[in-house]
């Protein structure tokens, strides 16, 4: 790895020498022309020299040591159209730049408050430094840095995001504008997305959910890539990371270009490779806990003033080992495993990258075409996407020569979305659209869910009104889904069921900016989710939990009323910030699994407890609070608290498997830029995760075999710096998770029955960007 970095250093430095002795300074300030917001993060390129800067928090930038002469300045910002400014300088010079707002409004960007206060009420975002710290981690691990988002895990390699206690099919994941259609229903089915694609990870609730579906009961996760290049030239970025605990290494690279002769055409190629060996807890190393990931994507775009189109293809392929000490044959095995404090020695102590049974192999392909047409002030979008997801699960088998998967699911999805954005009139703007989807699911090997074909169509309409301190948004959506299922029984009979569900959703959101400091936010959303095929028709043994799972064909859609209120404060010098989000999600006919202790299923492997999908009424309420203080410009203390109460209101009991309350305190110290070193900081985080005491009463049917694990406290460390070599800025980061090597178990990790969580994990990451602008 050292060698690669050295070569890259040499390559970049050689291309960057600027040898003239000149001493003029060019200072500048960038603002949004409409809102007068100072634009941080705008990219300023001096075309003649190729020098590149990014504006600071105040929207300021400075180029030093320029020679007199004529220059072309290229200014670009993510939410604005690019600007070219010609200047002639002979002495120190200052320029103010006003950036016009991009014509893309509702369709691409999520409406947020334009004031200087960060919008944290119903949209939470992970980008910049926080996203950098998660490079090399999974999508769910990265998202769990957002307050209110936690993880549902199977060991250290499979994790899926949980928003305010809900997960799987209650969360819509939008990968580069396309609704992800994989096998999300399973607790050990992680989202099939390469986080390196993302420039931003965003969690939204409220009106904007309606663009993606009526079933976002928990919210929507947006995985947003950077827009394609807007300045002729090329750029590359190389990321690498290494993790000591499981010797995991990650290499990711991206190359993009906009041609000089054909500036309408832009493209990007991106790829990631990741491989990890067996992970270690503080006391022992767990055999067969490695993983491997190979991802690739290519984007090509054509952009003209009245028309632009983009073609995107991505491929995600992963192979994930599952700790073989967790292989459970029946209930007695599970009870024995739970009774022992650590797994048997035959399952421990091996340091290898090799993956053996049981393991999962998942591939996901996505092809997307998106076109935008401007007709006057009207904007039309057409999005067509195809997805193919193939999941293979390899169990422990009797014969070692068997190479076949025991569970084999493939799902083909085709989706079409058309939307229309009307021009802004009398402070109103809005978007309407229709979406359609066709889906074909097949299985081979063991039965768990049937073959099915599903068709859905839906339509939505969203209007937004904003004036002075107010923003009002409202929307409505209707969806219809028809499902035709087929299951072949062992004696060649087929069992067919047809379903048809109509779901309606609507949402109303209001934002009131009381002043530059205060912002209030209120939302009420109605969502409804049709039952998933696994909830209707699953029928089989779930080996991870030693239960016999059974669906119910009479399930109805579940309907939620989600009320949230947010308050946001930031003082003028930006040294203190506070926000609070209160929510209450009342779900009628909430689908959950109820144990039936009186009806065990007798099999040749013994009696398995039966759990059946059922409906009840649920109420999930809680709050996310965060505050940050900057006693000096270098020191920042941030505190985040997340609390959830999840009730089964029909039987006045708690719901199972809900994240416990947690408090995180992080202190960051930023060092002054020194010579070649900039963006230097160190941070220490104390994470306190409470014990989950709110669990279902055993008198309503024993739902769990083991009491929730004890509370735990983790200490994490992060440090980063950017080193300039000519115009290339290489970022280096060091992270230590679980500094004190604490042994702990998490309630939302199925492996808590068997093993401790991963011990201390030190990571090092390096990012090398490179940019060239055509003269």
């Amino acid at each position, binding site marked *: 790895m050292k060698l690669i970095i050295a070569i890259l250093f040499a390559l970049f430095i050689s291309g960057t020498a600027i040898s003239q002795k000149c001493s003029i300074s060019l200072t500048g300030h960038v603002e949004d022309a409409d809102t007068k917001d100072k634009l941080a993060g705008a990219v300023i390129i001096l075309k003649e020299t190729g020098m590149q800067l990014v504006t600071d928090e105040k929207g300021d930038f400075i180029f030093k040591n320029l020679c007199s002469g004529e220059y072309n300045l290229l200014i670009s910002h993510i939410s604005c159209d690019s600007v070219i400014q010609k200047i002639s300088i002979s002495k120190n010079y200052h320029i103010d730049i006003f950036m016009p707002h991009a014509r893309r409004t509702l369709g691409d960007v999520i409406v947020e408050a334009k004031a200087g206060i960060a919008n944290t009420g119903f949209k939470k975002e992970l980008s910049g430094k926080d996203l950098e710290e998660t490079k090399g981690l999974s999508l769910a691990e990265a998202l769990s840095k957002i307050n209110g988002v936690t993880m549902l895990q199977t060991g250290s390699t499979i994790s899926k995001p949980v928003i305010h206690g809900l997960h799987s099919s209650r969360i819509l994941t939008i990968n580069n504008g396309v609704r992800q259609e994989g096998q999300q229903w399973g607790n050990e089915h992680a989202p099939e997305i390469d986080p390196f694609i993302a420039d931003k990870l965003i969690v939204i609730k409220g009106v904007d959910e309606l663009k993606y579906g009526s079933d976002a009961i928990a919210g929507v996760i947006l995985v947003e890539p950077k827009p394609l290049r807007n300045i002729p030239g090329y750029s590359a970025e190389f990321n690498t990371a290494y993790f000591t605990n499981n010797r995991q290494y990650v290499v990711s690279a991206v190359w993009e270009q906009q041609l000089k002769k054909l500036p309408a055409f832009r493209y990007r190629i991106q790829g990631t490779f990741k491989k990890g060996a067996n992970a270690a807890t503080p006391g022992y190393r767990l*055999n067969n806990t490695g993983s491997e990931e190979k991802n690739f994507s290519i984007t090509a775009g054509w952009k003209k003033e009245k028309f632009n189109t983009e073609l995107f293809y991505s491929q995600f392929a992963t192979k994930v080992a599952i700790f*073989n*000490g967790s*292989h*459970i*044959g*029946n209930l*007695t*095995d599970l009870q*024995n*495993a739970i009774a022992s404090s650590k797994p*048997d020695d*035959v*399952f421990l102590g091996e340091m290898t990258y090799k993956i*053996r*049974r*049981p393991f999962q192999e998942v591939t996901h392909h996505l*092809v997307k075409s998106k076109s935008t047409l401007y007709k006057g002030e009207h904007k039309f979008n057409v999005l067509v996407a*195809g997805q*193919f997801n193939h999941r293979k699960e390899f*169990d*422990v*088998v*009797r*014969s*070692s020569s*068997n190479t*076949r998967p*025991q569970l084999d699911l493939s799902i*083909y*999805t*085709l989706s079409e979305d058309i939307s229309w954005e009307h021009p802004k009139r009398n402070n109103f703007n809005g978007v309407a659209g229709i979406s359609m989807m*066709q*889906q*074909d699911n*097949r*299985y*081979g*090997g*063991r*039965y768990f869910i049937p*073959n099915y*074909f599903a068709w859905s169509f839906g339509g939505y309409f969203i209007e937004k009104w904003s004036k002075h301190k107010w923003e009002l948004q409202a929307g409505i959506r209707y969806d219809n889904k028809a499902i035709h299922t*087929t299951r*072949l*029984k*062992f004696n*060649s009979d*087929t069992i067919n069921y047809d379903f048809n569900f109509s779901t309606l959703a609507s949402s109303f959101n209001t934002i009131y900016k009381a002043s530059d400091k205060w912002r209030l936010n209120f939302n009420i959303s109605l969502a409804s989710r049709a039952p998933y095929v696994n909830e209707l028709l699953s*029928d*089989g043994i779930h080996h991870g939990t030693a239960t*016999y799972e*059974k669906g119910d064909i009479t399930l109805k859609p579940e309907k939620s009323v989600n009320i949230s209120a947010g308050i946001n404060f930031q003082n003028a010098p930006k040294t203190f910030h506070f926000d609070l989000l209160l929510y209450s999600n009342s779900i009628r006919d909430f689908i959950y699994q109820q144990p039936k202790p009186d009806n065990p*299923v*007798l*099999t*040749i*492997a*013994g009696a*398995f407890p039966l759990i059946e999908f059922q409906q009840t009424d649920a109420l999930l309420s809680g709050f996310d609070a965060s505050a940050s203080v900057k006693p000096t410009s270098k020191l920042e203390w941030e505190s985040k608290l997340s609390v959830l109460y999840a009730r089964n209101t029909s039987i006045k009991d708690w719901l199972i498997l809900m994240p416990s309350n947690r408090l995180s305190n992080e202190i960051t110290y930023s060092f002054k830029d020194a010579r070649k070193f900039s963006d230097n900081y160190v941070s220490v985080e104390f994470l306190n995760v409470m014990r989950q005491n709110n669990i279902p009463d055993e008198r309503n049917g024993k739902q769990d075999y083991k009491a929730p694990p004890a509370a735990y406290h983790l200490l994490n460390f992060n440090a980063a710096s950017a080193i300039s070599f000519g115009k290339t800025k290489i970022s280096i980061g060091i992270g230590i998770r679980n500094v004190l090597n604490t042994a702990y178990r998490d309630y939302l990790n199925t492996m808590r029955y068997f093993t401790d969580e991963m011990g201390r994990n030190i990571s090092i990451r390096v990012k090398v960007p490179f940019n060239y602008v055509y003269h």
Partner: protein
Amino acid sequence: MACLLITSCKKDKPEEPNEEEVITTMKLTFVPVGGGATLTYQFDDPDGPGGAAPTQNEIVLAPSKTYNVTLQLLDKTKTPVADVTVEVQSEATAHRFYYEPTAGSNITVSGLDNDGNAVPLGITSTWATGAVATGKIKVTLRHYPGTPPNKAISDLVNSSKSSTDIEVEFNTKIQ
């Protein structure tokens, strides 16, 4: 994309799912030492886990007799019926049967056959009966998922090295 379109739109009969690892039936064949009629008793769940409930015989043996017992595992969801015993035999070092009669059943099981490492396997065994009695016997097949399996003579039925493939309890009667 085109192929995606075609496969998505094609509506056809599902293929026969190739379900593996199913054991529907455990058959015990008793050959009395010194002559007599051969007896067979079984646990039978022809449609696999779920669906129709399994049927199970009571094991009825004569008093004060010795039987040579052979165990056979079948998968009746396949046509023709698959003999799973062959698979277990070929991976003998990663499998082990246990026979646990309850106290008072007046049955003792011994003479289990061994795997290649001289550790008991238990596809064949010898059952000796005492006086007239009723009781139960539990037959368990344990599978060692580790690499190497590290199967040892001293391993108990609930060893944390192995997991359960089969666990069937028969009622027994000596009359």
